[in-house]
């Protein structure tokens, strides 16, 4: 199709938005609410993921070895740990290093250690896992290795966090799905109204040889245009909401830092991605709504 005729169809679609103002506004509103919630959920998820990542980064499993472990066994344990694909980092602490560390950490009581005859610290491996959800599995595997006395792992906190994330994903997913369905239904009704208002024109178009693409394009433009407007508006609102939530956390983060939370991702870092996602999702919802209203009703 020629550019001039594509322009003509696009103009026709956009002008239809104003002619059909009340229904267009209904579609715009519901799409905006949906996209606002989509945007906020995505931002929340991004932040939760950042927190998870912070925890994962500091996430160490401490493996204490038995008192009587031989040097050969230590080498064996190290090679087993290094071969495990879930483990990303392995660090070994000898008895001496462990004591030294303890001494440094507890400087005030270091003199007490001088009274010790033996070094009471066990030999230790510190390992990190790539995926927090596999931590329990990794711990189980390690505990079966000969020479391992005790394992310390932060899986309780990890599993709580994982559970929160999974539950949230499930609820947000269900709410979003419902909103998406409602949005599509409303958009499709709006377009249907538009099709009905132009039924006479459409029947004439058929007689004079319009292809079905020619007839349908303005309706797609209409649906997608509403979607993009709603996406942009939702983006503005998301920004406002996000900024006010950010300011809540700006005061004192000491408590939160314990949980791996070092403040929200600044909106300016992600604003363009959010805008693109919002408008893209809006256009997609608009297009899908249009498919439902034009598929059956517009046969050449």
């Amino acid at each position: 199709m020629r550019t001039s005729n594509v322009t003509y169809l696009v103009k026709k679609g956009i002008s239809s938005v104003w002619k059909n103002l009340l229904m267009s506004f209904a579609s715009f509103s519901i799409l905006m609410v949906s996209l606002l919630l989509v945007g906020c959920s995505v931002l929340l998820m991004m932040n939760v993921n950042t927190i998870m990542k912070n925890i994962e980064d500091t996430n160490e499993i401490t493996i204490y070895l038995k008192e009587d472990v031989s040097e050969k066994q230590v080498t064996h344990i190290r090679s087993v740990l290094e071969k495990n694909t879930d483990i990303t980092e392995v660090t070994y602490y000898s008895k001496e290093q462990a004591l030294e560390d303890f001494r440094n950490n507890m400087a005030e009581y270091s003199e007490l250690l001088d009274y010790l005859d033996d070094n009471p610290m066990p030999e230790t491996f510190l390992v990190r896992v790539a995926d927090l959800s596999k931590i329990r599995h990794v711990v189980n595997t390690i505990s079966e290795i000969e020479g391992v006395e005790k394992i310390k792992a932060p899986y309780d906190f990890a599993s709580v966090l994982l559970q929160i994330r999974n539950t949230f994903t499930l609820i947000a997913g269900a709410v979003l799905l419902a909103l998406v369905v409602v949005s599509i239904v409303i958009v499709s009704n709006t377009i249907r109204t538009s099709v009905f208002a132009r039924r006479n024109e459409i029947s004439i178009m058929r007689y004079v040889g319009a292809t079905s693409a020619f007839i349908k394009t303005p309706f797609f433009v209409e649906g997608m245009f509403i979607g993009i407007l709603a996406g942009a508006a939702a983006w503005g609102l998301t920004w406002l909401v996000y900024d006010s939530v950010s300011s809540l956390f700006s005061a004192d983060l000491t408590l939160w830092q314990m949980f791996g939370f070092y403040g929200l991702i600044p909106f300016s870092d992600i604003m363009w991605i959010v805008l693109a996602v919002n408008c893209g999702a809006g256009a997609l919802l608009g297009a899908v709504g249009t498919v439902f209203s034009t598929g059956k009703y517009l046969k050449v």
Partner: protein
Amino acid sequence: MVELKNVNVHYSSGVDALQDINLRINDGEFVFIVGGSGAGKSTLVKLMTREITPTTGRVFVNGYNLNKTKGNKIAKFRRSIGMVFQDFRLIQELNVYENVAFVLRIADQSTRFIKQRVPYVLNLVDLAGKARSKPKELSGGEQQRVAIARALANDPGLIIADEPTGNIDPRLSYEIVELLKDINRSAGTTIIMVTHEHDLVKHFGGRIINIQDGAITFDDNIGGSDEDE
């Protein structure tokens, strides 16, 4: 060229709309199709515009085998014919110029071509001065001339006019037929005009096809009274 071979149309309601129709209309002919209401004229028009396909038999129009024409090919085929209806079927929101330009857009013509072509066809139907008027502001005869201009826009080899004088002042009916005759004579466009107005047919004469109860009962040339004068 229009050709129907052993065509039967049987509607699901149980009506046999057309029975064993054999018909051939050559390029450049002007043909009246006459018959009372319910005789099968509309069904015949629907076959020739590929709104329906025959239950049995074959339909060829402008080199298209309409039994096998589907999807966007139907759109392409319809651009090769011009349609004129009893109720004009103009788009009320668009002015005269835009109504004609509209079909050229649909045929994917350039804006430059449209700007040349629309005034030209409006001139042919003597409506150059009304280009900016809306259909509502025109008389029935003028609206039908806009519809004829629209049918001419794509320079079709065939124009099918379905009761084009049905909604207009009888005195103006003659002007409309005269206009179609002119187009037929000057451009060699094949014209099929469906009508139930016998006076009009008698006046102009030419090839007449009469349909009754779904069958062709008469197909021959008669002399028109205007030729006798």
